[in-house]
């Protein structure tokens, strides 16, 4: 009557055993863990501490910058090809230019075609309009994001040891999850600047004061502020002589006055250009520009080749960060922090401890209550409950799912709900006995009748977990995962494990009556 085939018994034993094996790495530390097949549970940032940052890559800025370059290229190409033009403008995400002589159209079109396949040119009444085409926009977005991710990784994890998660999200976003951060402000400082380094000559024909007075600067120059916030400005040539891409290395050091400074070395191409510019312009100030602000503008004393020094109003920490950022390279576009969640390691550890205490106490309360309510059967259900927790831990470890603080709440909640299946079964058995069935028939009937109810009620909860997973983020996703795993494992333990235990008990004792 009580059918529980051998393969089912073996299945239960096998599942429980592998559950124990896979959950063991979480209990034993050190070397013993390396002999076991599984891994420890992957703790979420809210439990181990760390920073979660959702960044937006300012792609519009890149687009603008690329179109500026296009405008400049067109200007230079037209000049060298002696094409007369007017109204070279950048507006509404496009560069427009008017040819004075329609006869230059063929030559001009050739120049436009050389701009690359990301751009399309349209013409209307001798006015040419150059803009990104659809494929070009996508290409630029993808490249910008990929490059940003690469630079973010190099800045946050220069040694490749911190295992940050850095991934693209949606069109223009990057998600950064960096475990074990003590100072989230430092992380934001590292990502907060694009670190575009350029060397440009200062135009000495006009002083900054004159430029401000007249409200304009000589052609081909631009007015830039000082980075130190002293209010000074410089009239700087637009032409970039040497840029950050030509850097070979950068490190924190000190200048001859013992103040913190950043030493840099240029690669071969950079060194050649630097040598030529400094050789040709001895006596002129040479501006070192970081993100559009003049860090310093020393007067060139002699020809310099590969190595240089950036001096300014720096602290030691700033030179360390700046040299790290310069080594990692410039971001293609500014990053904007849209969401931040940083948890200190202390809070994470406290949360784990509190979660563990809550879990143990919940387990004890539920276990005692089950024994009080159902006696021996309650104790058997308690064994299944412990097996359930072992299986949840094993599943989380094996799947390398992330355990979050709400996830711990999910496990504790599962304890309360896991016994539900057993309660349903026991109540059914109680009824069967009340109807005058024999013990074995009552047990068998109780299981048979309860099973469809158990499936229905658990599946509906699984739906809630599913949508939490789909729409939730971070810790909430973790909650959904543990809830879902808990439902599946509790189904197994309640239906299979307690059943096996009860059958083993019934076969041995051959009870003539049971009290429930």
């Amino acid at each position: 009557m009580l059918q529980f085939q051998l393969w089912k018994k073996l299945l239960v034993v096998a599942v429980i055993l592998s559950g124990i094996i896979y959950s063991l790495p979480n209990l034993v530390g050190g070397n013993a863990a390396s002999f076991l097949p599984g891994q420890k549970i992957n703790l979420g940032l809210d439990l181990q501490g760390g920073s979660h940052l959702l960044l937006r890559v300012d792609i519009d800025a890149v687009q603008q910058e690329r179109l500026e370059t296009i405008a400049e290229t067109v200007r230079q190409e037209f000049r060298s090809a002696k094409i007369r033009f007017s109204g070279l403008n950048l507006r509404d995400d496009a560069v427009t230019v008017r040819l004075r002589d329609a006869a230059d159209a063929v030559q001009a079109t050739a120049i436009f075609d050389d701009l690359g396949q990301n751009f399309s040119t349209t013409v209307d009444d001798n006015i040419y309009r150059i803009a990104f085409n659809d494929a070009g926009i996508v290409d630029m977005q993808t490249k910008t994001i990929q490059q940003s991710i690469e630079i973010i990784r190099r800045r946050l994890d220069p040694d490749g040891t911190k295992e940050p998660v850095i991934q693209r999200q949606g069109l223009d976003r990057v998600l950064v999850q960096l475990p074990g951060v003590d100072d989230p402000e430092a992380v934001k400082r590292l990502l907060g600047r694009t670190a575009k380094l350029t060397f440009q000559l200062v135009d000495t024909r006009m002083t900054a004061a004159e430029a401000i007075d007249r409200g304009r600067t000589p052609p081909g120059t631009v007015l830039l502020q000082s980075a130190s916030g002293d209010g000074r400005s410089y009239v700087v040539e637009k032409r970039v002589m040497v840029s950050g891409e030509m850097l070979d290395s950068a490190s924190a050091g000190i200048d001859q006055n013992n103040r913190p400074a950043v030493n840099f070395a240029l690669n071969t191409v950079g060194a050649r250009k630097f040598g030529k510019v400094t050789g040709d312009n001895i006596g002129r100030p040479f501006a070192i520009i970081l993100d559009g602000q003049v860090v310093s503008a020393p007067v060139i004393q002699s020809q310099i080749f590969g190595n240089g020094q950036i001096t300014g109003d720096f602290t030691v920490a700033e030179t360390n960060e700046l040299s790290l950022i310069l080594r990692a390279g410039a971001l293609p576009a500014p990053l904007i922090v849209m969401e931040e969640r940083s948890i200190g390691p202390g809070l994470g550890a406290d949360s784990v401890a509190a979660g563990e205490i809550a879990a143990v106490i919940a387990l004890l309360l539920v276990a005692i209550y089950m024994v009080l309510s159902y006696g021996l059967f309650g104790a058997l259900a308690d064994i299944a409950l412990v097996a359930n927790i072992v299986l949840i831990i094993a599943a989380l470890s094996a799947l390398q799912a992330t355990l979050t603080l709400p996830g711990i709440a999910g496990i504790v909640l599962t304890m309360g709900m896991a016994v539900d299946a057993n309660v349903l079964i026991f109540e059914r058995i109680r009824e069967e006995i009340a109807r005058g069935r024999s013990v074995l028939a009552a047990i068998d009937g109780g299981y048979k009748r309860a099973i469809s109810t158990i499936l229905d009620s658990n599946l509906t909860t699984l739906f809630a977990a599913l949508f939490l997973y789909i729409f939730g983020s971070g810790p909430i996703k973790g909650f959904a995962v543990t809830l879902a795993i808990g439902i599946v494992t509790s189904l197994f333990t309640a239906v299979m494990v307690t059943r096996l235990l009860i059958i083993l008990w019934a076969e041995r004792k051959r009870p003539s009556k049971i009290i429930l």
Partner: protein
Amino acid sequence: MRLKLVPSDTSINFLKHRRIAFIFSILLVASSVGLFVVKGLNLGIDFKGGILIEARNTTGPADISGLRADLGQLGLGDISLQEFGTPTDVLVRVQRQEGDEEAQIAAIAAISSTLGDSYDIRRTEFVGPTVGAELAEKGMLAVACALLAIMVYIWFRFEWQFSIAAILALAHDVLSTVGLFALTSFEFNLATVAAILTIAGYSINDTVVVFDRVRENLRRYKSYEIRDIINKSLNETLSRTVMTSFTTLLALLAITIFGGAVLRDFALAMIWGVLIGTYSSIFVAVGFLSRFDIRHQEPDDGVDVPETERS
């Protein structure tokens, strides 16, 4: 001797109290919606954007009024401070700053430097306005989709009348939980949405167990009146309903007391959910069910459910 919260054999006429329960539920839902509209929810930064900083004074109890004065001088607008968990811990909430994301980041830096070295910053959360709106949208979508999926599943497994009754009971639970948050001004955040979805899952769990029994008894006792079948089903499942609610409450109590301050609101919401879910399974879901002619598939035995209560 076994511990029993409910005797094994009860014969409570639940449907007799249907009208009282109905009025109570209508009032509950109406006042919840009213509170939601008039008073509104105390939305957390997850949804409205803003800054939240949890800090611990490493030198002694946190001087909340002193901090309030210091932080108030930063000119960051609406700042709220509260003790969090222990007297040394303080939770600082700052409204969304005027301007773009950069302004928010600057505000965080200003707050952490004002807190000074004696405070250890344990948690920093900042949600920009764009992300806040997205999270709110996703949260509502999650609840809507979950309710829809549950409704379809019940429809598939039972009859459509069961599905309608179940979804009305669920809406009752969700709305009254929202009402509770409006009434108490507890912070309504992503964890609350998770709690609401879990409440929905829990409540439907309870409802399904009762429905299952109703369906079984409909087949078994063809000559019984619907009201008797429903009453019988409720009584037969009562012991289990109370038992499961009680064990779940025990687990939630453990989280509330020992699980730390972060989980406390979540656990409290869940406790409410278990109570209201249990109530709604017994009175609301089945109350609606008793108004339908759920025996239409066996027209021969058909007994129409009276629209009004016989006294």
